[in-house]
């Protein structure tokens, strides 16, 4: 039997709190996603173009970049969060709240996006780039008009994966007082045994992730023309 009264009480009591958490999660995800993408795409391009036989072939730049990306990617977010506290403090003046968590989120996500972009760009047929080189077109124009353009569907799917990963990482943001859905589930659902809150939060997260993935798939399919 569904107890409507209980549901109504739950909604009126928890909706503002869950709503607030959704806003916090959205803030963290959107801001860090934007900054990570701005950093990650150029890094991904560098990872492709500094390879052997590519336009900006440079063994040192490639090896160092590759190593740094691998090191950061090996550290679990919860450790990274505390590991770089001094750096976060130096950069934004605080280590707590949404502001304090953006720095570790970006450092965690940018190398991930760089790797995803690298693999997207490597999928672009090298023959098309060669054709543009043969026409006397500058490398920077080829990056924009050939590589990024042709990789768009794959880039969108990559960013979708990165966004879902980011939502997961923001669950740990509560540890530095940044709030969000993960924090809500942990504090109320786990520490205070409010199981309903846990279920509600998990439900919201599932809907969120499903929605983002479907949107990503849709946009990628629209961009793909073959």
């Amino acid at each position, binding site marked *: 039997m569904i107890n409507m009264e209980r549901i109504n009480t739950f909604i009126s009591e928890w909706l503002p709190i869950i709503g607030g958490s959704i806003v916090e999660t959205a803030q963290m995800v959107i801001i860090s996603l934007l900054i990570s993408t701005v950093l990650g795409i150029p890094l991904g391009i560098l990872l492709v173009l500094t390879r052997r036989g590519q336009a900006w072939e440079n063994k040192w730049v490639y090896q160092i970049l590759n190593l740094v990306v691998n090191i950061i990617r090996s550290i679990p977010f919860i450790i990274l969060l505390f590991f770089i506290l001094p750096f976060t403090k130096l950069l934004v003046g605080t280590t707590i709240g949404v502001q304090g968590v953006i720095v570790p989120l970006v450092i965690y996500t940018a190398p991930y996006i760089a790797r995803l972009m690298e693999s997207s760009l490597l999928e672009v*047929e090298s*023959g098309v780039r060669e*054709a543009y*080189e043969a*026409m006397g077109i500058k490398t920077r124009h080829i990056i924009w008009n050939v590589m990024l*353009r*042709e990789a768009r569907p794959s880039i969108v799917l990559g960013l979708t994966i990165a966004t879902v990963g980011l939502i997961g990482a923001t669950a740990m943001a509560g540890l530095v007082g940044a709030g969000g859905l993960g924090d809500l589930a942990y504090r109320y659902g786990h520490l205070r045994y409010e199981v309903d809150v846990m279920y509600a939060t998990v439900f919201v997260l599932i809907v969120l992730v499903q929605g983002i993935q479907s949107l990503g798939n849709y946009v990628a399919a629209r961009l793909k*023309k073959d």
Partner: protein
Amino acid sequence: MIQLENISKKYTTKKGTIEAVKDVSLHVKKGEIHGVIGYSGAGKSTLIRCVNLLEAPTAGKVRLNDKEFTELSKAQLLAERKNIGMIFQGFNLLKTATVGDNIAIPLKLIGVKPSDIAARVDKYLEIVGLTDKKNAFPGQLSGGQKQRVAIARALAQEPDVLLSDEATSALDPETTESILDLLLKINAEFGITILLITHEMQVIQRICDHVYVMEAGEIVEDGPVIDLFSQPKHKTTRSFLNTISQRKLSKEFVDNLKKTGSVLRLTFRGEATGDPVLAAVSKEFNVKPNILTANIMELKNGVIGNLDVHMAGEKEEVARSLAFLEAQGVVIEDWDDQYGKN
């Protein structure tokens, strides 16, 4: 127009040095179509990429319109490349752009005035016969249509030279024919000089003025197409010729015939069909020529006929009849089982 002088290209890999191109020289005169033929791995792909310096040669000189390419700065080289169109086996179009944009985008990037771009797109789409596909995406086109778009893209730069890297190798025979016709048309109408590489003798036969046979990085034989087709010397040239003619005699069959006379390969150049000469031979001499196989190849600059003939008769009579045929300009060779092999 295009001059390669002693071009060599070496690659250093972990396993050692590979010499893909060894001391190759060639000269394509303005308005001509020259073809390099070779099996895969012969180095022809590397060679054609040395012309526009997509591959920098290890040694040798590349000269185009009397400009020394190997001495140009990077910026100068980019500027010169605008004058060289290139088409590829894999078409290399943008999948995410329409046919029209595939032509317009490179024009924009090489600095053609925006007001001229639309007109050029329409003009060259019409030349390749794809005006109605302007808003289609490459994914909706057939292989031949994609190559036409690639040709329109190359032409739209209005280059003096077109490089073709196995442009018909991914196409079926009928589509290949139509693309070759298009290349002949643009060569005739715009005077574009064409250097192509291929492994299909049919391409050389149909459109080339001059052919280079390449093997293991070297040019083993070259000359005007009509000469090479009528008197091939190198065995690679012969085996390429076998791919376009029907020479299916078996060695056993020929050996049996040789007991009663000679088995010969007669090659006629030009418009001569061969039949009247053979009729004359049977009248003048005490020999009975019997045609075993016949083959006519239409080249860009003429016709070549091949006859495999069994000449029955006494040795001396046969010898006299052959001398007569040679005097008529017929090239005579003993039948060789090399011909039968593919």
